[in-house]
């Protein structure tokens, strides 16, 4: 299971889901699914998110044991 801090970081950067979606090249629904934890992104999307938040991937995503 992959846990992420997208919701927290998005709030910190004062971005709406739509704005973040636009920046990383996906639809708003994908950001919604990411924040809910129901979607595991591709490496490319994870890297794009890292670029937007100025953080390495491992600080945004972490592995969670069941």
């Amino acid at each position, binding site marked *: 299971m992959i846990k992420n801090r997208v919701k927290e970081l998005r709030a910190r950067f004062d971005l709406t889901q739509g704005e973040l979606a636009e920046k990383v*090249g*996906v*639809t708003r*629904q*994908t950001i919604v*699914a990411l924040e809910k934890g*129901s*979607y595991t*992104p*591709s490496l*490319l*999307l994870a890297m794009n998110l890292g670029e937007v938040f100025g953080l390495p991937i491992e600080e945004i995503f972490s592995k969670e044991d069941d």
Partner: protein
Amino acid sequence: MGMYVAVFLRIMLFISTSLMVYDFLVIQQNFIKMERGFITEFSVYISPWPGYFFIGSALFFLIANIIQYIFVRRDKKSDIKAFMSFEYNVSDERAVVNTRKAVSIAFALLLVYSLLMIGSYLYIPNYFVDHIWFPLFTTASIPVFGLLVYLISYKILEYK
């Protein structure tokens, strides 16, 4: 373009093709009946409307596909490699993943549905003589069933 429009147009294409073929099938069957001496004569009226319906559906489908292709080419988020026809959503990576999952579900259920349809021929072998529409429309119902399962699966996955 909406998935509902895409699936609706595709279903219309299957239905219109079936309706168009149906008239032809009835005439062929009557000729066979006459050859075998079951009937001595027959008269038919072929309406041009199934043909118009087919041409209209095919044209709408083609135009919608071209428009969607242009939109997909312009949209940087889209995965152009995954574009086959406009009922497949390629608007972003999650949409592509969901499309693949929905296609898998539709394929699995299609196998079961096809088995049932083929099985239905076993129980009513004499039925086809008088009701020639049965094999035609059961065949047409297979892709229609697949499309509906695909649409429902995709929509469920989209809001999951």
